[in-house]
């Protein structure tokens, strides 16, 4: 299914930050990971992609970030400030929280004073103030993911790519981090593209949910999420939420069959 004008979210007034047109991906070994993907993400949008494992969701992000090049179609990016949050926290174990968060700015050759201040700010923003001097091994899984999030925030990203970042966390931590992420989303006004295999997480976090089929990954359906931000965690238990989650789950099952 392609994006028709009627499902364009009303909040979008700016140009799209990320635009995929008819993107396909075939790997050197012949595996077709994606086929005919059209996808637009604009400022103020938080788009979530759900799909069965191995459907090429991650490939989508890797193409968007430039880690892979699509074998077909066009990809347009309107920004260079891209944050990428990996499945695991990917912290450098020999660096403290502060030094880990400074890493990206350091790689971009920003002066010490600037990156230090920026890292402090990001650490406060993700609620890790006081843990600057700790090493990753001393942190819980959730705190490591917060550190990873803070590290990406130092880039002031306009487009934020999330590759199942909370997949390895327990449910309570996962929900709490989801709420934190939404708070940061409202403060920073980036465009988000979030990959997950959890339908509830997708509906709760995003403005739009995209459902992908099994390999080769295609977009099979797309749902606008009508809930306003800030979202009350309790909307998860409303009939509207359940109904929408049901629809997404159905689409997921049909796409997989």
């Amino acid at each position, binding site marked *: 299914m392609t994006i028709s004008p009627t499902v364009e979210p009303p909040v979008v007034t700016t140009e799209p930050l990320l635009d995929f047109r008819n993107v396909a991906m075939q790997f050197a070994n012949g595996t077709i990971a994606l086929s005919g993907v059209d996808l637009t993400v604009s400022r103020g949008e938080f788009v979530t992609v759900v799909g069965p494992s191995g459907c090429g969701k991650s490939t989508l992000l890797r193409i968007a*970030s*430039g*880690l892979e090049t699509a074998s077909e179609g066009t990809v347009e990016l309107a920004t260079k400030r*891209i944050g*990428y949050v*990996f*499945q*695991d926290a*990917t912290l*450098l*174990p*020999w660096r403290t929280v502060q030094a880990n968060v400074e*890493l*990206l700015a*350091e*790689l*971009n050759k920003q002066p010490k004073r600037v990156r230090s201040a920026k890292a402090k700010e990001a650490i406060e923003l993700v609620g890790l103030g006081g843990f600057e001097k700790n*090493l*990753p*091994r001393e942190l819980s899984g959730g705190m490591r993911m917060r550190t990873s999030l803070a590290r990406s925030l130092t880039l002031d990203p306009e487009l934020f790519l999330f590759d199942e970042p909370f997949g390895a966390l327990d449910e309570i931590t996962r929900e709490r981090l989801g709420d934190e992420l939404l708070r940061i989303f409202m403060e920073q006004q980036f465009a988000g593209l979030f990959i997950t295999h959890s339908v509830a997480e997708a509906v709760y976090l995003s403005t739009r949910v995209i459902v992908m089929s099994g390999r080769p990954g295609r977009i099979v359906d797309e749902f606008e999420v009508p809930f306003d931000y800030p979202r009350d965690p309790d909307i998860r238990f409303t009939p509207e939420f359940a109904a929408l989650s049901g629809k997404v789950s159905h689409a997921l099952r049909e796409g997989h069959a």
Partner: protein
Amino acid sequence: MSTAVKSAVTSTQPATVKPTRKGDSLLSRFGPPLVVLVIIMAAWYGIAGYLLSIDKAFLLPLPHVIISDSFFPANGAKSIAPDLLRSLGLSTQVALFGLAISIVIGIVWAIVMSQARWVERSLFPYAVILQCVPILALVPLIGITIGYSFEARILVCVLISLFPMVSNTLFGLQSVDHSQRELFQLQSASRWTVLTKLQFPNALPAIFAGMRISAGLSVIGAIVGDTFFRRGQPGLGNLISVYASRVQTAELYAAVITSALLGVVIFLVFGLIGKLAVGRWYTSA
């Protein structure tokens, strides 16, 4: 000699520094090996006592006899302590020099190989060959071609202790997590930046583990060089040869135990250095 060769072969897999588990009391750490030591000493006294009774004490002298004969000899003979200390000093010097050279060459060699697949393919076989060639067979050759100097002894040490440094460093450089590499790639980090800020720090635990293995091997190298050369400045190996040829068993045991202790001390020191350097962040799974 066969044990030396065996340990050189078996101990070269990439090993890792194990941190001490928390909650280990002094007793639970040192108690068991002390019990084993007591058992060994008891067995020693038992066997040596038996040999003494059948008039073959020269095969295995009683432990306290080794000490008294070597350092507090009766009837006007000289203590071997000055000789032993001088040899110990020389062998330590040879071993440490050789180790230092191995560390530098090994790390550089591994870094060069880590930079491109084809370089690794071209150079790694030679590291393996170096490991497979029985170095002991080369020692007489080294003596004949470049002499019996300090440098020749160091060369033997380097040849024996180089491989663990090469293989461990290479393993450490290459075992960087895929997504960490991509994290750097996303910021268009240069090769140099990836090496210095990601690969090298990541390799440090493996490098220190390699250093510990190489340290033990370079002590072996120092002593092996001596025993084969039998001339030049007398290290512990020379001393061992001399006592063996004169069947001075007590002195021979004293020299052997001293070289064993040198190996253990160097091994422990490098283990400690490794722990101080990376123990804070590195935990083996």
